């Protein structure tokens, strides 16, 4: 498994993680799907490492049915105007997962066909899964918290 977009490969707890250059994520996903037979996008999410930079990690879980293997791809994204290319053109499964990450983390996916909130109300303020977002939301404050 080698592609110029893969910057680093780690093994931990019996799982493989590839750190991928965010500018080449679509090419790397395409490579994993076509060459390495990882035909399923199992899940897509993000992790917020506030306040360190680069703040976000976008995490992709791929699954190969033929090889019975799983692999994790990670892209680091900066906190100011977080943006990354959408992989909707590789797997249509990315559609809702990317909308969810946009909704809850505020990371915009370029070239996504319909980049709107999916779980929270459309007029919601803020992105709840960010670490600087309080558990009770902005609207309510509790004196003891």
């Amino acid at each position, binding site marked *: 498994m080698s592609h110029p977009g893969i910057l680093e490969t780690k093994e931990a*707890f019996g799982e493989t993680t590839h750190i991928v250059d965010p500018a080449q994520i679509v090419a790397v996903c395409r490579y994993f799907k076509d060459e390495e037979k990882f035909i399923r996008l*199992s899940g897509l999410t993000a992790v917020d490492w506030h306040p360190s930079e680069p703040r976000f990690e976008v995490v992709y879980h791929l699954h190969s049915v033929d090889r019975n293997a799983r692999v994790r791809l990670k892209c680091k994204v900066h906190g100011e105007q977080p943006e990354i290319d959408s992989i909707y053109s590789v797997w249509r499964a990315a559609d809702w997962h990317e909308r969810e990450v946009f909704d809850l983390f505020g990371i915009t996916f370029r070239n996504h066909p319909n980049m709107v909130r999916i779980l929270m109300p459309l007029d919601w303020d803020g992105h709840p899964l960010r670490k600087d977002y309080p558990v009770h939301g902005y609207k309510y404050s509790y004196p003891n918290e």
Partner: protein
Amino acid sequence: MNKSLEDNYSTIAAVQEQPAGPAAPRRMTLNMGPQHPSTHGVLRIVLELEGETIRSAAPDIGFLHTGIEKQCEALTYAKALTLTDRVDYLANLSNNLVYCLTVEKLLQIEIPERAQWLRVMMTELSRLNSHLVWLGTHALDIGAMSIFFYCFREREDILRILEMFSGQRMMTSYIRIGGVALEPPRGWEKAVGKFIRGFPSKVDEYENLLDSNPIWGIRTKGVGYISLEDMLDLGVTGPMLRGAGLALDCRRTQPYSSYEKFNFDVATRTGNDVYARYQVRLQEMRESAKIITQALEGMPTGPYQADAPHVVLPDREKMKTQMEALIYHFKIVTEGFRVPAGEVYQCIESPRGEIGYYIVSDGTAKPYRVYMRTPSFANLMALPVMLKDTLIADSIASLGSMDFVLGDTDR
């Protein structure tokens, strides 16, 4: 409604598409839900109709979003377990199990064999519970009323067994980090044995009841077709995938909790339609009954919790006599236990498909990030493809065959 909200609503693809030119047939936009009985929860679907044919369908989810992933970050590992029950409230034990397996992978603790077998048995009972609720309500939607009462009769027996084991009927939290919550009560073999001996004949009864009904065949055969390529591309898993002939089952391909020691078949059918999915689930009920029987007959003896005093709450009796046990109890309850830093993804086969938890730990007593890859969310993405160019009356059968739980979708 403010301006930005209006802008956002207009981006929903189904609303935007308007027919061009006078020759195009008239289209009607129909709002289905969010309180439609056949969606079994709060799901809204915007349908674009041409006569009785659906030209496009846009599901709108999020009405049941409760921020469980965010809440998990504010609780200790042991406390966050109770939230996982509420994600998929029909298969709560599957959620407990996958959460515990993920945390145990991070902690790297060995689970005793008896606890693993108890977990398998209870998870399979909850799979039966989930499939029974699905069969009853799905048939009710299509118009076969009486099957509902038969299914809920057996479901009641399962809930009684769950109550016997854990004290709760639905939100059991029976599977805990390090093992299971309690030693099974006296007489459990008799209760489970009595239920499981009678169960396979009950499945035959459901099959007879439905298959001898010609309306059932007409409403389900050839309805809700979606190709295998589309399903793999859209991330669909579970009985829907196996109803298209692909034997993908995490219990077999990536065994966990000693599933490799059990003898069972992965049910598959070809047909890609509502009827194939119904047959797969019926067969899965029979296979689950086989697994439970094996677990009952070969249940190993030994402890029901791991030997990890820093993680597992001590025995009540030890707490009253040993100082160390009391200290451990105090530490676990007040500040929780620390989990080594790292990240782990673990998936299991829930009644609806692949359920995977991705937990990131930063070395403290609270999870840094809990991501739940829920099967209902991924499966529901296939709905627009499945409903396109089908009749509106068939949409109820197609929806039912997906077997989604909205709590699982919205989390």
